């Protein structure tokens, strides 16, 4: 499998004369790997090691009426049971570390189990087999409860409540909405202007990270009144923080050792093994291992969550996409874990690597009665990229255009304004398209071959933040009172306007204040500074003066205007546009733009924003030091 380096591209931005960087050195850990000596967490031997296994709910949604553990306790080898009341701090949420979201998930659940496989009791025994036998001997009287498994069913007023902390089955964003909004320009005007509307729905399945090493941890009492914990975690201090919180031990009494992990792919962030193993060691005074078997890894371990996406594009007949609307559902399962964060990550990624003048999205983190989902390779992005790129092909077919040329035509370029109101830089999508077309023998037009990420971006409307239409639909709890379509602007008659150019002046990303003694000489970092690439980044676009007219996206520019215009990217040869689609039109659903639903006045909500918040483009509330504006719960700003 030959790998080719295209050193010719972007060569003037790189200094390739580095001593160690860029060299194919063998891995530092490889001799350990090939001799079987790399110390994975389970490769530490302890005398008298105990084994832990959990009693789990067999139902999608159930209540524990009673538990009889007497037979289990008599199984030879059983040392100790851990019950919910034995967990010092039983409720946690993973992103508590970032002050994002409310504690919503027990380590061991005392009463209501919201997914099949939820643990209620941990049993510690002298052998794994004894622990398994004892788990089988626990008699639980389960009361089965109504459950919901589909994300859109979960949004309906009559849906059973999955998660008590979020009784509306959606994560609360900003104390205000049951979803995260993205609004840029005016999608409805864009759709009205478009020659074609292309719609599609896409579904990502839950996927198991399936590392060859299953998740686990071994904890043991250490000298000096501490506990050592060997762990497969992907995030050492995440796990330290969670374990310290749930065991109520100061982190100074915890000694975590890891770093050599048999694959993770996102599945080893959730930090459930460490607190349980440490609790076991605390309660027994002996080393305790809590390790998932493969079946647990597959069905109890949090997978990559399912995602459902609907995309609606407004497209000109020359292939320019003038409006794009997303409605997305992340299936979080029964508890938040990291799904709330994925929604925001994904919102920042929308509309993909394309410059589109009018964009709107509503993205939901939805609770359902299934195994909680968590991170996996490409978290928050893989699903929406599947949707976007399948959709791009539908658009290409609709306008009878080469799929790669459609991407190049719409690709983002340096200086373009992105939907989250920050300038694009360091772009290279076009070059990737060109290189892969060339090497796969996919013919592109001369114009597409000549396009560049460095040229044509950041001019006129492409650089500017347009006047933006907003709405306040989907307030927390609103869907419990009435059925409400999840799409942007659905069910709300009132629109607000955020003035063109409105963006907060954020500090540059990428660099916290850097102490002088940590500064390295710029010329040793491998950039060719002369090309204007900043060495210490200050990548934010200059603020756009308010009131700058935005001529194109909002209908001011006629749709029929020729596209051989430097500011809109490569003009494509007529041949690329004239071909008829090869498939009957009906395979691409073409629906008229839906008329706005009848006006409904939103009922008053306890989380109604202040008038200052509501004022479009108006001042935002002051930020209290030390209080994250992410907090959406009682600890948050009010």
């Amino acid at each position, binding site marked *: *499998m030959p790998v080719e380096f*295209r050193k010719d591209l*972007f060569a003037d931005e790189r200094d390739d004369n580095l001593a160690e*960087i*860029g*060299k*194919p*050195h*063998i891995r530092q850990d490889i001799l350990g790997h090939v001799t079987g000596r790399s110390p994975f967490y389970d490769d530490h031997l302890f005398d008298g090691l105990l084994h832990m296994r959990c009693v789990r709910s067999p139902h999608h949604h159930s209540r524990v009426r009673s538990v009889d553990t007497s037979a289990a306790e008599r199984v030879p080898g059983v040392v100790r049971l851990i019950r919910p009341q034995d967990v010092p701090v039983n409720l946690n949420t993973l992103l508590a570390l970032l002050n994002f979201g409310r504690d919503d998930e027990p380590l061991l659940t005392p009463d209501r189990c919201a997914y099949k496989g939820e643990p209620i009791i941990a049993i510690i025994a002298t052998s794994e087999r004894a622990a398994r036998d004892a788990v089988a001997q626990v008699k639980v009287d389960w009361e089965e409860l109504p459950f919901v498994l589909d994300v859109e069913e979960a949004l309906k007023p009559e849906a059973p409540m999955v998660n008590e902390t979020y009784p509306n089955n959606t994560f609360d964003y900003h104390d205000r909405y049951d979803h995260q*909004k993205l609004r840029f320009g005016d999608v409805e005007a864009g759709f009205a202007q478009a020659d074609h509307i292309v719609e599609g729905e896409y579904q990502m399945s839950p996927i*198991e990270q399936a590392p060859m090493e299953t998740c686990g941890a071994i904890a043991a009492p250490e000298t000096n009144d501490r506990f050592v914990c060997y762990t497969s975690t992907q*995030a050492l201090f995440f796990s330290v923080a969670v374990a310290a919180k749930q065991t109520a031990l100061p982190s100074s009494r915890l000694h*975590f050792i*890891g770093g050599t*992990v*048999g*694959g993770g792919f*996102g599945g080893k962030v959730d930090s459930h093994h460490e607190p349980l193993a440490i609790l076991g060691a605390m309660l027994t005074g002996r080393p305790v291992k809590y390790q998932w078997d*493969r079946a647990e890894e*597959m*069905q109890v371990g949090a997978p990559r969550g399912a995602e459902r996406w609907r995309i609606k594009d407004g497209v000109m007949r020359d292939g320019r996409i003038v409006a794009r609307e997303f409605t997305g559902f992340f299936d979080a399962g029964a508890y938040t874990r990291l799904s709330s964060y994925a929604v*925001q*990550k994904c*919102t*920042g990624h929308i509309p993909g*690597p394309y410059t589109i003048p009018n964009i709107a*999205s509503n993205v939901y983190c939805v609770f359902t009665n299934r195994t909680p989902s968590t991170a996996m*390779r*490409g*978290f928050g*992005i*893989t699903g929406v990229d599947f949707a976007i790129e*399948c959709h791009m*092909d539908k658009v*290409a077919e609709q306008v009878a255009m080469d799929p790669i040329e459609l*991407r190049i035509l719409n*690709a983002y370029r340096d200086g373009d304004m992105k939907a989250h109101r*920050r300038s694009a*830089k*360091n772009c290279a999508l076009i070059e*990737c398209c060109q290189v*892969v077309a060339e*090497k*796969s023998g*996919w013919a592109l037009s001369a114009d597409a071959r000549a396009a560049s990420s460095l040229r044509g971006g950041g001019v006129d409307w492409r650089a500017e933040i347009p006047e933006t239409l907003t709405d306040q639909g989907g307030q927390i709890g609103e869907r419990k009172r009435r059925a409400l379509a999840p799409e942007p602007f659905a069910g709300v008659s009132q629109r607000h306007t*955020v003035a063109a150019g409105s963006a907060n002046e*954020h500090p540059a*990303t*990428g*660099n916290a204040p850097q102490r002088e*003694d*940590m*500064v*390295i000489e710029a010329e*040793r970092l*491998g*950039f060719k500074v002369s090309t204007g690439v900043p060495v210490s980044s200050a990548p934010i676009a200059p603020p756009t003066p308010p009131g700058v007219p935005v001529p194109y996206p909002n209908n001011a520019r006629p749709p029929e205007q020729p596209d051989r215009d430097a500011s809109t990217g490569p003009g494509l040869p007529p041949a690329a546009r004239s*071909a008829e689609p090869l*498939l009957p039109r009906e395979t691409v659903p073409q629906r008229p733009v839906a008329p706005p639903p009848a006006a409904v006045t939103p009922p008053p909500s306890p989380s109604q924003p202040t008038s200052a*918040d509501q004022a479009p483009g108006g001042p935002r509330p002051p930020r209290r030091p030390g209080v994250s504006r992410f907090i959406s719960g009682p600890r948050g700003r009010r």
Partner: protein
Amino acid sequence: MTLHSGRGFAAINYPIGMNLGGDPSQALVHSTPDGKFKVALSAIDLGQGMKSVTRQIAAEALGVPIEDVYVDTADSDTGPHDMGSFASRGTHRMGNAVIRAAAEARTQMLEAAAEELEVNASDLTTDGRGNIHVKGAPSRSITVEETAQAAQFRQGRTLSGRGIFLVPMSDVDPETGEMTPVSCFAHAALVVDLTVDDETGEVEVTQINSAYEVGRALNPKLVEQQLIGGAWMGVSHALYETTEPNYPDRTHGPEDFNQYLQPGPGDAVPHHISILERPAPDAPYGGKGPGEMCANPVLPAIANAVYNAVGVRCDSLPITPEKVLRGLRANGGARPQGRL
């Protein structure tokens, strides 16, 4: 039975690091008395090569040979705080922290050498082979080992450094979604060739051509490992993998590798990779984390290629033979799309 050939394309970009920041990484570097350097981290090596890439970064930033650097991770007693290995943040965040820690240690190393050579530290540089010399005068030199010994036993000076890299936490606007997300993006474009059997519905990927833009390939072989393995996982996601084959219904969830399907060694797809490098201004030596994004374009490219081959849109993953056959039946047979 007919095998229909199809070709599909997809292009993506990928944000590097935790989207909204607030995810610091720290690194500590110190020398032994004989001029070797230890890098203490609490980063996790899951196979992506964290230990190896931070070792190369430290050696480059210190200006010493890679053999003289060892990375020790992850022991919470000795490795300072790090958020972890996820969100493609390892190379970007930790790499920057290591550069900063190494920069501080290098400054002290040059000062110690300057004292021995009786010159100004600003006149000194390293040759990357274990020597420190006066710029433009390689003969006026001292070894790193001699420098470390002098620092340790005569000057009473440490050759050590602390580094932290933090993208400060930012916020998301509730109404517009305005935010300051990640600071750099990796890119990819990919062409998949495959065949679809219109009798069995089976899809066989026959070739992948790809172009991945990774900022800078800090270690080209580690990047190659990620790209080959990641594309393999993309094929696996597209065609086989699910924990809930009847989603949203939870029945028939796999519990072992006999039921949870993945391509095996006999299913490896010839993959022709081109690597582009447009260094990201705030990334270590410009390198972006390639680990996550490499799988992403494969999924839609396969779906698009299946449509190209037989005219069936599989908008729901995984693209199982059953879904292909149902689509073929609904269309009244295969409808090859050809190429535009």
